[in-house]
């Protein structure tokens, strides 16, 4: 399992803190079970951080706690100077957009209607439709604006959700397994696109190689806690992978980009 491409990041932007995400000591429990246990992490303004970890490590729960859908038991979530947990839901939705796993509907909404949902937290305006069409353009779906949601493939739906999130004009983008069920072309396209967007992004990802190829930093979760965090090169090393996922792995530099490429094998004794 390898990923063959990686975008070249443009030279580091000036140290702009206005949209830096800082999560401090956030916990969340469901029915008395602690799912997210005192997580702290930071995502620099305009960069993409991958949230990795085995099934049940608490990736989705942490994303929902950061996005305010799960009310955290404790901790602080700040975006720049804004306290995301203290603000009203609607104010938060003007700053934070969420792309969920396989969110779908039974009703025959048009693609453009779905993208326009991104304007929900904002004051309705004449430019809403133009904005929505621009977002569709950005994800290469403008010609499908009038199509019925049900006629779209999984990859197209995910791109429409991304266009909806962009129409929300967020300063923070939260993505939960955005590449699930996408073919390899759109897996690369979607993450490359989010990376180049320049919007502070936190994405829960399953595929460690995708994360290594596109994320500026990665955070490894285990049992609701941060097991390791840092650049993919520093975090995705055999000892850590063995420790967290229980598999052996070899790490090679990517022949074109030099980023880490992981190949896995079962634990040998």
């Amino acid at each position: 399992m390898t990923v063959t491409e990686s975008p070249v990041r443009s030279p580091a932007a000036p140290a702009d803190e206005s949209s830096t995400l800082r999560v401090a000591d956030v916990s969340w429990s469901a029915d008395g079970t602690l799912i997210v246990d005192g997580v702290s992490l930071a995502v620099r303004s305009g960069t993409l951080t991958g949230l990795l970890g085995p099934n049940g490590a608490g990736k989705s729960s942490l994303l929902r706690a950061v996005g305010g859908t799960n009310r955290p038991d404790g901790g602080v979530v700040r975006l720049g100077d804004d306290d995301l947990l203290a603000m009203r839901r609607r104010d938060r939705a003007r700053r934070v957009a969420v792309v969920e796993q396989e969110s779908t509907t039974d009703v025959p909404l048009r693609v453009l209607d779905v993208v326009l949902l991104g304007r929900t937290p904002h004051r309705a305006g004449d430019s809403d439709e133009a904005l929505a069409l621009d977002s569709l353009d950005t994800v290469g779906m403008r010609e499908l604006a009038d199509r019925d949601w049900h006629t779209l493939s999984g990859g197209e739906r995910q791109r429409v959700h991304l266009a909806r999130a962009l129409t929300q004009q967020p300063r923070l983008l939260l993505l939960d397994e955005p590449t699930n069920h996408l073919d390899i072309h759109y897996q690369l396209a979607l993450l490359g696109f989010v990376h180049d967007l320049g919007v502070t992004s936190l994405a829960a990802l399953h595929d460690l190689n995708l994360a290594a190829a596109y994320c500026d930093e990665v955070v490894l979760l285990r049992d609701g806690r941060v097991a390791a965090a840092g650049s993919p090169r520093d975090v995705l090393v055999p000892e850590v992978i063995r420790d967290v996922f229980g598999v052996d792995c070899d790490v090679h530099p990517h022949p074109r980009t030099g980023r880490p490429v992981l190949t896995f094998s079962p634990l040998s004794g």
Partner: protein
Amino acid sequence: MTMTAAPATTSPPAPAPAPGAGRRSSGARTAAWVTAMTAVLVASITLAVVIGSADIAPLDVWRSIGDHLELTSSSLSQLRDGIVWELRLPRVLTAAAVGAALALCGAVMQTLTRNPLADPYLLGLSSGASVGAVAVLVLGVGWLGLPVAAFAGALLALVVTFALANRRGELAPTRTVLAGLAVSYLCSAATSFVIFWSATGDSYREILSWLLGSLGGASWTDTAIVTVALVVVGTALVSRSRTLDAFAFGDSTASTLGIDVNVTRWTLLTLVALLTGAAVAVSGAIGFVGLMLPHAVRFVVGAGHRRVLPLSALAGASFMIWADTLARTLFDPRELPVGVVTAFLGAPAFAVLLRRRKVGR
């Protein structure tokens, strides 16, 4: 910036066509539909007033309206004017307002519960409203007490239905309809019981008109009650179109879009109960209008609420006018309860919806 894969990947998706190519503004299309449906409604009102045993010409309808609004002064005979203005027009306009109200309620309920089978009748609201209305009629309060009691009955029935259907915060469509059925039977029994216990004369007719609906004897007061509720509640619901759209993808997505899901759901459902109460207070429990028409409208124009809500109301108004016209002319001079007509058309539609994928959970 278009979303294509990293450089070495072969063919990226086809580029988008020039901006605006091949798109008509959705606003213009909606306006065209609203205009067309309004024309149908005006024609329906005119024709429905004309149809009947007395010999009335279509123009007489507008002469009478013009005279009473003191816009014209025609020489319409007092008899004809009386038939148009005192008998038929309030009935036809009440039918239109009731149809619009029920269709609007159905559309909003289907969205808020994510249940294609939701409708004020099937979920027990209409029967609950009937009990409230009948109870205050027995107690003998003024005309304002009637819609208020019907509203209280509808709201109570809604709460009980949801409490019965709720399992771990989920309202499965089929279970919700079964719960609605249970509530509906109980309320219908209570309605029949109260009428039978209190009435001296023709209680069966009265029971029928509450359980199956009737617009016979509708007065201008009835027209006013439903129309005021329709305008006030309808405006509030239409202004929340975008919020309603956001419910399509479920509570969690709606929440990330900044909506307080529970507060919004109960606020809007309370408004629905209010509107249902007003409709039932003047016409009894008429079924299937709220179920069918929103689906028909969505089938034609898609599910966006800025289109669905106004068009459902307009379609519901015309539909109810014709259902009531059939009800009063089919066995003239005897009247069929209008709910019998709507059920003949609506029950098959319900069966079709039930057969559709994703409902039978």
